[in-house]
């Protein structure tokens, strides 16, 4: 996989190294900006309230569901 990318990058070794670094940084940026913020709420550290949205809970109770 990585060998394939390396072989398909243009230029000599230095340019390829530079392009690889840019690719790696780009991937890290995408991860930190989009993927991790999406994945992080799936972990339990966000559960700090006692009601998980009490309005919703009480709304459901009020509607006699």
């Amino acid at each position, binding site marked *: 996989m990585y060998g394939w990318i390396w072989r398909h990058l243009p230029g000599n070794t230095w340019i390829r190294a530079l392009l690889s670094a840019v690719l790696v940084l780009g991937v890290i940026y995408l991860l930190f900006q989009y993927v991790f913020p999406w994945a*992080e709420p799936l972990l*339990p550290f966000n559960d700090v*309230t*006692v009601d998980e*949205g009490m309005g919703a809970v*009480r709304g459901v109770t009020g509607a006699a569901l």
Partner: protein
Amino acid sequence: MSVRVLVRTFSELCVTVGTLIVLFVAYVLFWTGVKADGAMDSQIDQLQSQWAQGSVPAGGGASGGSSDGSSSGSSGGAQPEDRPDQKPPPEADQGDSAEAPPAPPAYQDGKPFAVMYIPRFGFTWNKPVLEGTKTDTLKKGLGHYASTAQLGQRGNFSVAGHRRTYGDPFKDFPKLRAGDAVVLTDGSTWFTYRIADKPYKTLPSDVEVIDPVPRKSGFDGPGRYLTLTTCEPEWGHSHRLIVWAHLDATQPVEEGKPEALRG
């Protein structure tokens, strides 16, 4: 040949997944804190520039008092507040040690309205309090349960905060003890709450802890209370830690910082 390709691809996958996990841990432990610190600072800046411009919520005593006063005769503060727009009457003052501050206007969802100081967490510890407890709101500061009383009002002003990640605002929560001060300001008044007892561990479904008079807190009548909630254990979500406090003193900001912050 094909075995070689298989093994190589599998190894590369393992290395990739490992790198991803390390990056994700770095994100959760470190980057959320960096982002949250920036967001909390900007929330506090936003509040302070609002207060500097003079749009302080306090002046609304006349309008807030008169509109709320109409309902005060019937039920008083003992009634649980299900709707955020139903405020406890500000002038109902039976047997209350603290003087009644005027009712501030309704808070806007997701917007900061106060700054909290807890000397036990360090004298530089201060966090913005935002309206609502949505996930996105809690990334920018502490969250006020929208269904509970407003700051300094009769009822239970309840606030949730992260114990870990997003700046670790309530990291030292278990160190809180009876008598510790929780100081808040809304730009016009300092509110000093005193914690009643050491943290109480409960289940996430225990919504009674933010009732106007929380049954297990030891408070035995209507009053001006404060509840803080966070997660327990530190990195888990099976339980919650709670502390309760009562309003001990208020003073206008013109009189300077309250006793508890002068340390």
